[in-house]
């Protein structure tokens, strides 16, 4: 499909100027919310990618955390402040780890995939919590980011990180959409439906899953690095299983229908969270859980399936 005919790509491309314009007029808190949810939405996008191949990663926090810590440690210990370098590290380190772990992970399916990914993320959590040089459970702060020599401060810095987050998140989503509409991308669904037949047709599901695993890690790593840059602080909770659970939640709620779904879903969730915590602090998770049950029962395709249904006019 060419660029001009793909509605998702056009929509995403238009989203960049829209987001930047919105950033200029939105109040600070809402813009920050948007920024943080785009970052965590990328991690959820990593979960979605694997979900399309029928694999549920209950440890995507591993790569979210690795991305954040790669960027954070380079900034904190090596004095690297350039956001683009930090972002690149946030992709490279998780990808490298995923290439290695992928040899093992690609052999696992279903509940065993979920459990092994959970175990790996908890290992990282266990290491970070006890690493005093890295601030143990408190984590540490990142230095102020610079952008190719441009070193803003105050409001200008906040807008610059926001702009970087938007452009990076949307670009990643566009690239991922291209991947998912390629033959390599479509094979994921074939694996989910019937892996053995994919094998009989002459493709190696293991290689495909491995590639998807690495891509998901890279995407989540970008999310982690962006989250670290946005918040200016990282801690081991990024790798804890509840963080990963939250990503799975967003992926499930949004549905696997579109790359934009988890990004929008993450934002809506953050928005609801802010108001729920304000008005009813002790029942917030209860609302989440109940919503999740309702979605599983009545909307197996996630909220995006409502959008998709309207689009088809059915």
């Amino acid at each position, binding site marked *: 499909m060419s660029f001009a005919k793909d509605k998702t790509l056009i929509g995403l491309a238009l989203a960049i100027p829209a987001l930047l314009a919105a950033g200029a007029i939105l109040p600070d808190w809402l813009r920050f919310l948007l920024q943080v949810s785009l970052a965590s939405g990328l991690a959820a996008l990593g979960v979605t990618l694997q979900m399309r191949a029928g694999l*549920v990663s209950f440890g995507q926090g591993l790569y979210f955390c690795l991305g954040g810590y790669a960027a954070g440690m380079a900034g904190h210990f090596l004095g690297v402040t350039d956001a683009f370098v930090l972002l690149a590290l946030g992709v490279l380190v998780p990808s490298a780890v995923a290439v290695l772990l992928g040899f093992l992970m690609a052999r696992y399916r279903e*509940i065993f995939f979920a459990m092994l990914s959970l175990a790996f993320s*908890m290992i990282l959590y266990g*290491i970070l919590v006890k690493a005093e040089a890295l601030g143990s459970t408190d984590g540490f702060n990142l230095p102020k980011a610079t952008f190719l020599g441009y070193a803003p401060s105050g409001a200008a810095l906040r807008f610059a990180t926001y702009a970087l987050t938007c452009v990076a998140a949307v670009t990643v989503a566009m690239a991922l959409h291209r991947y998912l509409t390629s033959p390599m991308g479509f094979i994921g669904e074939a694996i989910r439906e019937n892996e053995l037949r994919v094998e009989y047709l002459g493709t190696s599901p293991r290689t495909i899953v491995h590639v998807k695993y690495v891509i998901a890690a890279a995407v989540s790593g970008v999310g982690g690095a962006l989250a670290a840059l946005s918040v200016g602080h990282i801690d081991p909770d990024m790798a804890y299983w*509840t963080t990963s659970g939250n990503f799975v939640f967003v992926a499930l709620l949004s549905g696997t229908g579109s790359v934009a779904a988890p990004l929008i879903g993450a934002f809506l969730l953050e928005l609801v969270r802010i108001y729920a915590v304000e008005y009813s602090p002790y*029942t917030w998770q209860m609302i989440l859980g109940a919503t999740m049950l309702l979605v*599983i029962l009545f909307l197996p395709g996630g909220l995006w399936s409502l959008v998709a249904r309207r689009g088809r006019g059915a």
Partner: protein
Amino acid sequence: MLTSVAIVFDGLVYASWLFTVSVGLTLIYGVMKILNIAHGSLYALGAYAAAYLVGAYLGGGYPPLFSYLVLLAAAIAVGAFFGVLIERGILRLMYGRDEVLMVLVTYAVFLVLEDAVKVIFGVDPYFASQPYGLLGTVDVLGLPYPVYDFGLIALALLAGIGVWWGLNRTRRGKLLTAVIHDREMSVAFGINVTAVFLVTFIIGSMLGALGGAFTAPKVSVVPGIGVEVIVLAFAVVVIGGLGSIGGAMIGALIVGLARAAAVHLLPQAELFVIYGVMSLVLAFRPHGLFARPATRKI
């Protein structure tokens, strides 16, 4: 020498705690093929109910020795009530769905119950340490250990033997085994699978609550105590093999001793070692130490 004694005994106490928490989880998985994250909430609810009831009981001036029965009663009540509620209210609607999806369903239930705990019991910590100190301590090769901890080991053994005996030596247990092996065929032979599922889930829930109830005197009961427990229990049952009772026992021993060794020899590795062992076992025996791998179906 003293260190090795400490490692073995700390390990045993920790392992017995782990086993009490995990045996219900592995039982539910074995029968229903549901990896129940909400098990962590039942642990928390058991702990809260126990702490609350023991506080009320002792506050009433009754003989403290019977507070152990209060702990037990709290676990049974919590397990029965929430077991029925979760199974009949939610899980019943989801049977036949994908195993991984069931994990997410129970995760949702877990989230709901996490807040239910806060709504019911508030967010202030509860203390019920009287039963813990009541029995005094005993010297083990030069190290003082609370008698209560030996009680926990006995409780774990009792729970394990009870479940094993129930499964292997009673008629109902044999029916259960039939359901585990082939659900559809069991239905055809007239076993009431609905009832079997409900009873299994209640017993599993009670065991989870039991773990919480008997831990309550040792700790301060605060919101979120179930969050950590459930991943530990996952590690135990995955190491032993999902659905295997004996496996859960071995898994608990491995994790318990490994953690105790780490705490005494290399404290930085306390958490790492648990999940390190879990990954290692999964890497070499993907289905755990004691479970048979499933055949691939077309």
